[in-house]
């Protein structure tokens, strides 16, 4: 009988084996590692095909029906199509061409400037606004997906009173009656609940309301708020300020649980600055990046030195850093922070005074933010890498306190009328508030929202909100820049904006949102040339010079003494909450593009999971998809486990936003509701969670195990020294292997792409942009589990090193456009052919769906319409790009370098008898990429950007040994610190490297 000691020994031997194997090669998932050790039979779920038929009767019924349909459609001529021209044509003469409008979309209140492409009046695609500081031409995934949100058939379409259909007019009547009584009481009993307000017009309206009704209360709450950042600033600097970072000036960056590449306001801009400062080209101003993380993030994946610690220990790091730098701060004695990490960080920070930067994330408490302010001030970073400005949120109160006050007042029966403008507090308010029960005590509850959601269902009145692309408004970006949001289409369902609702509340003459916003700005400007200003602002997409200018702040002297003493709580498992990487706090839950976009690190789709470290999983004997009960005090939630390399031990991370009951047909019943465990005392993280194995299993749809390119030279990794040495050697001779393929036809153009893996941060914006541009359907969780996701560009994620502390690498993989394309030779109907421009085109009308091409594709980038995925829903049809064919069932599809964009540019150039200029064709993935990782262009143009990239000796082709000669090539990932500050032979954390450069 095996003893405990035997088992332990066996387990530790297995762990060592796993670790050794991991260090030797790249791996993509825990299963990947384990599978190699114990070759299991092919995973059955991949092979089984569930035909939803139950017996002979159903089969016959279906066959009869389809036969009848075939007969019916075969005997009659299709009806004539109709053409419906305008009655009065629009001002533009470019009938049939897309028109772009400058506007802005907001994420958690912070705006990003965008250009909205409209086709015949229908918004179809979002591009970044190159002149907007938060965008510079790029966007995040949420801005890309906002166009689907606009057309979402599940959006709230009617005013509802007690869940019965009503009208805006009856609502106005009810409201004005209510307001008459409220006015007499000077607003006593009236409460407004908004999310963070960054709109100057809305703020002015709220101020007017509070002036007229002085006893009314305005509360704010959103699940992803910035309380700690503002509180920390108030504590350390004495006032609410916005902290802006200048990554372009920083040489050393220390991030304390700060996901500034993906989570912080302005992250799209930060990502650009960060990557520009890290590139080989720009003499790499950013030398070393230290990150402490409580849960793996895209930012941590870029760190030179990453430290995974439970969230509560990040404060210890901040204190230790501050103490080492000579700030009189009490330090937790029994801290377990690795000394070498701390020594290195402190040495680097001191050496780069005035050019270093400490960033803190929203998850960390105010104390950590205050410490960072002190450290940055002490190192002379303020004014250089750290810029303080007025707060972007108009009234940066503590939202948690605000919503708690509201909850208390509601329960005490002091709230007589509650207006909830946006937000979904019934779903995402802290669990201990019991907001739902409190709501029942309020006699008159109004909810304005995009969806008939959890809060709408519990309100007396629900008013459908106008989408950001349907209404006028204004919004501030992370640096204070104001954009006017202009509508690109009339409200589809008569939705109302917050401005219109407040105007109705104020009892003003019924104004349109346009008049309200314009009047606000007219009052601000008082200039004679307002009309010109207005036109110019709308055209540019931003109010010129509206960014906040830096302000002077002074750090409180007694900071060290004023801080609460450090607390020691160890040895228990910590529960950490995070914004879901693709659906945020749940507001995007009904967005199918975002649901199906694999989460950057876990590659999960359609669900959240309890993320645990491999070590914890081993101790608790947990496997992926095991359902555990997360118990916290008297609350409990069941969640499937996902083992996540890089997760700190003793922690469980759960993403918010799932477990929705009234999100809509897409978002309902996916995942679990982490808000049930989120209380006002443990808002971002809390100790003392228990994981209890239930024995149940829950199927998760991860794209991780699919499309494996196991054990080969896929993501090439070079150290900075190697890369520079390789560059200095100059281009080597590229191998030309013997081939039996026919020579390619040639033309004036030879299109090609280069993807810089050193710039890719893995955010997935390219995938969503491609989906929007190319009418790519969504397949749903069950189909994703069968490996049938349709994304034309996927972002592969690889791990390297030990499972507990791996290096994370990303690789976007579109179709490689092989010159010797293996897919072409096997197609029996020549549906996969080369055109003279070098594009491997897929001819949908020839394709008969043999799928031979996909079988023969070494990159697995071809996607097959196994079912009729492209739904025929009027609003979804309206979103589709009219320049791209909507594919039907049984047809293969894949990336074609945005052929429609090439053709458009080509026709424009041909009409002018000139060549297409470099940079004139920008693919959707290239345009959206925040870091410029993707460059596309013409190989026949000697000076083109893509030729410059490919001239680098570091340029390499994926699976070059197959001699497919891809037109899409890669530049390697470069790791490790720059040479000049790499003192005393400290070798960074360079790992065994893959193959070097050519020659």
């Amino acid at each position, binding site marked *: 009988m095996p003893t405990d000691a035997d088992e332990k020994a066996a387990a530790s031997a297995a762990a060592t084996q796993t670790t050794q194997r991991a260090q030797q090669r790249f791996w993509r998932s825990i299963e990947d590692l384990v599978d190699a050790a114990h070759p299991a039979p092919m995973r059955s779920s991949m092979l089984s095909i569930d035909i939803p038929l139950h017996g002979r009767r159903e089969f016959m019924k279906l066959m009869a029906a389809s036969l009848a349909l075939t007969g019916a459609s075969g005997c009659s001529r299709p009806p004539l199509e109709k053409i419906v021209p*305008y009655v009065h044509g629009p001002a533009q003469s470019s009938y049939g061409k897309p028109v772009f409008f400058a506007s802005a979309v907001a994420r958690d209140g912070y705006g990003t400037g965008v250009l909205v492409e409209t086709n015949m009046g229908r918004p179809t695609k979002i591009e970044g606004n190159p002149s907007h500081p938060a965008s510079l031409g790029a966007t995040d995934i949420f801005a890309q997906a906002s166009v689907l949100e606009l057309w979402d058939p599940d959006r709230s379409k009617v005013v509802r009173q007690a869940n019965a259909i009503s009208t805006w007019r009856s609502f106005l009547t009810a409201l004005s009656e209510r307001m008459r009584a409220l006015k007499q009481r000077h607003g006593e009993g009236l409460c407004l609940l908004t999310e963070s307000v960054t709109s100057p017009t809305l703020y002015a309206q709220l101020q007017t309301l509070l002036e007229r009704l002085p006893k009314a209360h305005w509360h704010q709450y959103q699940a992803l708020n910035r309380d700690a950042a503002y509180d920390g600033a108030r504590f350390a600097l004495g006032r609410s300020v916005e902290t802006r970072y200048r990554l372009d000036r920083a040489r050393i960056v220390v991030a304390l649980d700060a996901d500034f590449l993906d989570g912080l306001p302005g992250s799209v801009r930060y990502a650009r600055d960060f990557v520009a400062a890290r590139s080989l080209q720009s003499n790499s101003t950013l030398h070393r990046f230290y990150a402490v993380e409580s849960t793996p993030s895209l930012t941590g994946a870029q760190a030179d030195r990453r430290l995974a610690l439970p969230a509560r220990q990040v404060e210890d790091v901040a204190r230790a850093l501050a103490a080492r730098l000579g700030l009189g701060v009490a330090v937790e004695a029994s801290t377990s922070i690795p000394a070498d990490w701390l020594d290195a960080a402190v040495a680097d920070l001191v050496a780069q005074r005035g050019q270093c930067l400490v960033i803190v994330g929203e998850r960390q408490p105010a104390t950590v933010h205050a410490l960072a302010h002190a450290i940055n001030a002490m190192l002379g970073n303020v004014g250089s890498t750290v810029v303080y400005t007025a707060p972007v949120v108009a009234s940066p109160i503590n939202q948690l306190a605000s919503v708690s006050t509201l909850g208390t007042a509601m329960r005490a029966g002091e709230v007589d009328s509650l207006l909830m403008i946006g937000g979904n507090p019934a779903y995402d308010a802290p669990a201990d508030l019991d907001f739902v029960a409190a709501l029942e005590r309020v006699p008159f509850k109004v909810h304005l929202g995009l969806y008939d959601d959890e809060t709408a269902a519990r309100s007396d009145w629900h008013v459908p909100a106008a989408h950001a692309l349907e209404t006028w408004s204004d919004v501030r970006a992370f640096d204070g820049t104001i954009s006017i949001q202009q509508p690109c289409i009339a409200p589809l369902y008569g939705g109302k904006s917050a401005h219109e609702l407040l105007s109705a509340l104020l009892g003003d003459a019924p104004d349109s949102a346009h008049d309200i916003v314009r009047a606000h700005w007219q009052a601000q400007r008082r200039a004679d040339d307002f009309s010109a200003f207005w036109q110019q602002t709308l055209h540019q997409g931003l109010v010129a010079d509206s960014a906040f200018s830096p302000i002077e702040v002074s750090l409180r002297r007694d900071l060290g003494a004023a801080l609460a003493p450090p607390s020691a709580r160890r040895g228990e498992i910590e529960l950490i909450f995070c914004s879901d990487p693709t659906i945020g706090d749940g507001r995007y839950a009904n967005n199918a593009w975002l649901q199906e976009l694999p989460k950057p690190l876990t590659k999960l789709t359609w669900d959240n999971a309890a993320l645990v470290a491999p070590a914890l999983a081993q101790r608790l004997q947990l496997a992926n998809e095991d359902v555990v009960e997360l118990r916290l005090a008297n609350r409990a939630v069941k969640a499937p486990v996902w083992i996540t390399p890089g997760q700190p031990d003793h922690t469980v991370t759960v993403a918010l936003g799932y477990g929705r009951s009234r999100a809509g047909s897409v978002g309902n019943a996916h995942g679990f509701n982490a808000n049930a465990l989120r209380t006002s005392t443990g808002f971002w993280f809390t100790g003392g969670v228990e994981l209890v194995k239930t024995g149940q299993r829950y199927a998760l749809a991860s794209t991780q195990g699919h499309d494996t390119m196991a054990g080969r030279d896929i993501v090439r990794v070079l150290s900075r020294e190697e890369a520079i040495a390789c560059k200095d050697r100059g281009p080597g001779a590229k191998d030309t292997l013997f081939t039996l393929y026919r020579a390619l036809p040639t033309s004036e153009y030879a299109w090609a792409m280069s993807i810089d893996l050193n710039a890719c941060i893995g955010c997935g914006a390219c995938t969503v942009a491609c989906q929007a541009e190319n009418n790519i359907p969504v397949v749903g969780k069950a189909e994703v589990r069968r490996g049938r996701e349709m994304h034309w560009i996927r972002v592969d994620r690889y791990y390297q090193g030990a499972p507990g502390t791996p290096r994370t690498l990303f690789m976007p993989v579109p179709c490689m456009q092989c010159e010797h394309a293996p897919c072409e030779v096997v197609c029996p109907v020549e549906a996969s052919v080369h055109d003279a421009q070098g594009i491997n085109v897929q001819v949908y009308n020839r394709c008969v769906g043999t799928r031979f091409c996909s079988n023969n594709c070494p990159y697995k980038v071809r996607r097959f319409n196994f079912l009729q995925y492209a739904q025929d829903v009027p609003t979804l049809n309206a979103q589709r790009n009219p320049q791209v*064919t909507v594919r039907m069932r049984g047809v293969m599809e894949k990336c074609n370098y945005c052929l429609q964009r090439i053709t458009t540019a080509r026709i424009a150039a041909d009409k002018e008898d000139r060549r297409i200029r470099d940079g004139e064709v920008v693919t959707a993935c290239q345009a959206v990429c925040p870091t410029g990782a993707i460059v596309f262009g013409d190989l026949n143009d000697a000076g083109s950007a893509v030729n410059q990239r490919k001239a680098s000796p570091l340029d390499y082709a994926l699976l070059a040994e197959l001699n497919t000669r891809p037109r899409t090539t890669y530049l390697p990932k470069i790791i490790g610190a720059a040479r000049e500050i790499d003192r005393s032979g400290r070798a960074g954390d360079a790992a065994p490297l893959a193959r070097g450069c050519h020659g």
Partner: protein
Amino acid sequence: MAQVFSRRLSLLLRVLGLGAVAIIAAAAVAYRVTARTDAALLAPIEQPIPFSHKHHVGDDGIDCRYCHASVEVSAVAGIPPLSTCMTCHSQLFTDASVLAPVVDAYRTGRALRWNRVHALPDFVYFDHSIHIGKGVACVTCPGRVDRMPSTWRVVSLDMQWCLECHRAPDRYLRPRERVFDMDWQPQGDQLALGKELRERYHIRSTRELTDCSTCHR
């Protein structure tokens, strides 16, 4: 007992059976080839008003671009907004009963619904502007509309027909300034002119013009 079906009868039955299947299949294919979403060839199409290209183009000499305003800049030539009709018809034939639907539509803002005469499958992307820009005349595809009292389709518009020109554009090209001319005839040898224009307008090689990606995407 002798066999009921002799070998010869059995063979005959088989041949007949196969023949029937073949005929049905051929008929089905023939029908699928001819079934289209647009109007039948050479058949005048009923429209909400009896609009006559013959009258507007042939008799009045109105240029194509007066109504099809985006033909030089956009993929689509554009069906004119009713406001274009009313530029003249607010003054001319104001009381004509045939024009009543137009006037009503203009007044009420309810658009007219025309029947499509030329339709291409959704996976075909035809661009008017590049054809006009490279010397392919308006009459080449919709035909002599200046002789059509009501509009009908004169060419098959199937891929074979498109390729006839894409394979040998020399046969159809004319000087750019003549593309809107209904009556233009080549002076001398069309092939020689076509060859010259093909070079002058930098028209792509036949290989490129017949690439799938030229029209499909």
